[in-house]
């Protein structure tokens, strides 16, 4: 994670920034990208793949990863979540998917923020 001059993190995108503002509003402590979890190393111990969840909520001991990818493009992220569960079973982590984020933004009346993740595919439910 990198911080801007005013001490706030450089968020990866507007959805992450909005999510942080919602947590602030409800008085929930959070840290942005505080920890990177190695997922795969080669025979020499060199890191091949790692995963840095977007948020950590200390009071909940919970990591949160946000994704605005459409469901059929989210396989890579889903695979990383599966690896996380296998390699770090004691770490609590939650993936907030595109539709969940959209519903959250709509719930709070943030229609403008929800618009970029309003794609038709995002609203179709898996059977």
């Amino acid at each position, binding site marked *: 994670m990198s911080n801007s001059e005013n001490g706030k993190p450089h968020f990866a995108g507007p959805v992450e920034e909005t999510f942080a*503002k*919602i947590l*602030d*509003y409800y*008085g929930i402590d959070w840290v942005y990208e505080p920890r990177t979890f190695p997922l795969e190393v080669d025979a020499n111990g060199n890191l091949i793949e790692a995963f840095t969840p977007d948020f950590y909520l200390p009071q*909940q001991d919970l990591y949160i990863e946000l994704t605005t990818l459409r469901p059929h493009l989210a396989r890579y992220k889903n695979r990383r979540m599966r690896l996380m569960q296998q390699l770090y079973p004691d770490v609590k982590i939650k993936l907030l998917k595109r539709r969940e984020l959209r519903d959250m933004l709509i719930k709070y*009346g*943030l229609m403008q923020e929800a618009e970029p993740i309003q794609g*038709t595919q995002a609203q179709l439910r898996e059977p």
Partner: protein
Amino acid sequence: MSRILPPDFGELSPDISEVLFTAEQIQARVLNLAAEISAEYRDKNPVLVGVLKGVLFFMADLLQALPIAAEVDFLSVANYSNESRSQGLVRLVKDLETPIEGRHILFVEDVIDTGLTLNYLLRTLQARQPASLEVCVLFNKPDKRLIDIPLRFIGFDIPDRFVVGYGLDFREKYRNLPYVGSLKPSVISGKPGK
């Protein structure tokens, strides 16, 4: 389980894709909850606290099915929005009129998803030192929970869908549906369905 199509309810029905709980199913579950709550709170004269406006129907039906002495009070909270966020932290728009120190409080919620609002409200009420503080929720969305909150009484666990009716709204509409159903995606997006 077969899909239940919405019964006619005037101009609102066409916006509903599926009924998740009929009015009869809801009423039956409310009666069961009232029986559980009565057994727990007999002779304790609890204060049932609800958050406006979604809890309106549930609170009314629950109270009428509760054969014990109980009081009721309501809160209203400014949820996060473009208008409220400029004022900083979440705040109560309407506070309780009942002093709750030393009282048994049952917090009655229509629906719980992330738990962000409920977590704030429970912390606020806990600071007033009630004798006990428990939560009763009619519709629980466990898959959406971000904040772990102990729930003493649960009506239904429901899937992660945008649901309306029986007090639940979308842009202040659909609260008066007697059943709970999921909205058509085209209604949520504001774009005509294909």
